């Protein structure tokens, strides 16, 4: 499905991309566009390749076919140096947080600043404390990553991802493990980053309602294909049964909750015969 967005409006676009993990096809000729200054969400069942897609956009994985364009540059054709230059403009929030375990919260957030800028320590301190304040963990600056809860770690990772004030940010499941209050703050923060700084955001999430509330555009992917796309309203009123089931979380419908398996009763009774 090609869509009609003007190309120059897109910070990131994915053209006819196919990707395999070993023999397994993860993406089958998929095309997507991510508009500048907008929040675009990617939704889909667990294991469809959402994280893989973010890694393809970040140039950590190489597609078997097709291309990824970020800010006018073809990610796969860049030299190493150019790719690293480009990545300074991309923030990525990993699903696991991926904090450096030998540094405390403060130093983790300061890490990209120290690596890429020559700012004096006083300035770094100000920037770090500002980012930590935004995620509500200024008081936790001296904790080590192993002393943080999963949700806290992900918020610190968010502070680190925005430390360099990137052009765009990719959030991999930012809402998992957040209590309702942090969730609200986080939603607000993502929206605020987007509106005040004009940050282009890509959110990967299962949290249908939260994501719909802030996204400008949504892609629903499954089995390596885009099954539906549009504004949250469009998706909500999608006429695809599949999308309806996914958005409403019904156990019954075209999507099977179970991995393909032999008949359940047969399976239970088949022990004696092996």
């Amino acid at each position, binding site marked *: 499905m090609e869509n009609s967005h003007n190309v120059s409006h897109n910070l990131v676009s994915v053209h006819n991309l196919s990707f395999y993990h070993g023999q397994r096809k993860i993406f089958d000729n998929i095309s997507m566009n991510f508009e500048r200054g907008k929040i675009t969400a990617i939704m889909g069942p667990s294991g469809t390749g959402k994280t893989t897609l973010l890694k393809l956009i970040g140039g950590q994985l190489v597609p078997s076919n097709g291309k990824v364009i970020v800010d006018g540059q073809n990610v796969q054709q860049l030299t190493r140096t150019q790719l690293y230059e480009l*990545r300074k403009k991309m923030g990525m929030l990993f699903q*696991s947080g*991926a904090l450096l375990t030998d540094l405390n919260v403060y130093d983790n957030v300061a890490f990209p600043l120290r690596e890429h800028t020559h700012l004096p320590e006083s300035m770094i301190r100000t920037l770090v404390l500002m980012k930590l304040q935004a995620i509500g963990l200024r008081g936790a600056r001296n904790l080590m990553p192993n002393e943080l809860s999963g949700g806290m770690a992900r918020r610190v990772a968010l502070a680190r991802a925005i430390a360099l004030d990137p052009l765009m940010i990719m959030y991999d499941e930012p809402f998992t493990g957040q209590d309702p209050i942090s969730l609200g703050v986080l939603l607000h923060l993502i929206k605020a980053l987007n509106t005040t700084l004009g940050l282009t955001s890509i959110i990967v999430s299962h949290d249908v309602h939260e994501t719909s509330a802030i996204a400008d555009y949504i892609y629903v992917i499954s089995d390596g294909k885009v099954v539906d796309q549009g504004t949250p309203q469009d998706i909500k009123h999608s006429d695809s049964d599949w999308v309806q089931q996914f958005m409403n979380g019904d156990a019954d419908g075209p999507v099977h909750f179970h991995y393909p398996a032999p008949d359940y009763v047969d399976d239970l009774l088949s022990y004696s015969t092996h």
Partner: protein
Amino acid sequence: MLQLFQHLGHQTLSSFRKLGRGSYFLVNTLRGFPNILIRPRLLVNQMYSVGVLSFLIITISGLFVGMVLSLQGYYTLSDFGAEASLGVMVATALVRELGPVVTALLFAGRAGSALTAEVGLMKATEQLSGMEMMAVDPIQRIIAPRYLAGIISMPILAILFSSIGVLGGHLVGVGMLNVDDGAYWAQMQSKLDFRDDIINGMIKSLVFGCVVTWIALFEGYDAIPTSEGVSRATTRTVVNSAFAILGLDFILTAMMFGD
């Protein structure tokens, strides 16, 4: 039968592939060395955890190896009335062989396994990927300083091992077995050759340092990013390092001392 060949072929291919990846990894690591000059702190920190933390095990082992050498040497030498040569015997054995080899084996177990586990876990917890996405090259930032630290530490640890070993030998030989103190040192001084013995021993441990640290870091970097993968990689580091050390020791000895 056919299956056996198939299996062998497969194994050979994957070994070569791994060697290829390892070499590429090594080249990239070496390219990261100039960067360390800008950030000497990274090296200092690694020198501490790779080198300094190995001091204790090296010191204690060196002491006991020297003591045993002295004891065994004394029994043999005294049959020929050559106890006076005890010092030179202990020192030669330590400086030429036992110092570099035993230090390298201990280093692989102490520091090598720790490096593999550390790097492997960093990979498993996506810290390396995370760095890449922050436009920081993990090979330059994480691997290169550890590699250099390993290369520098090994010869220093080997010298420490041999020196403590000579003292241990003295403790047993002169202290317990009444070998003449003057003879212990004098023969050592006159017979031990600086270039032939000491320099060659240092070259050995430098080579071991390069190889063992390379194996350890690469196994960690190449590990399957799960707890089981990291645990296997750690085992492989110790086993492969031991083979590499003993094999290389034979080759180096033949080249150095076999005129």
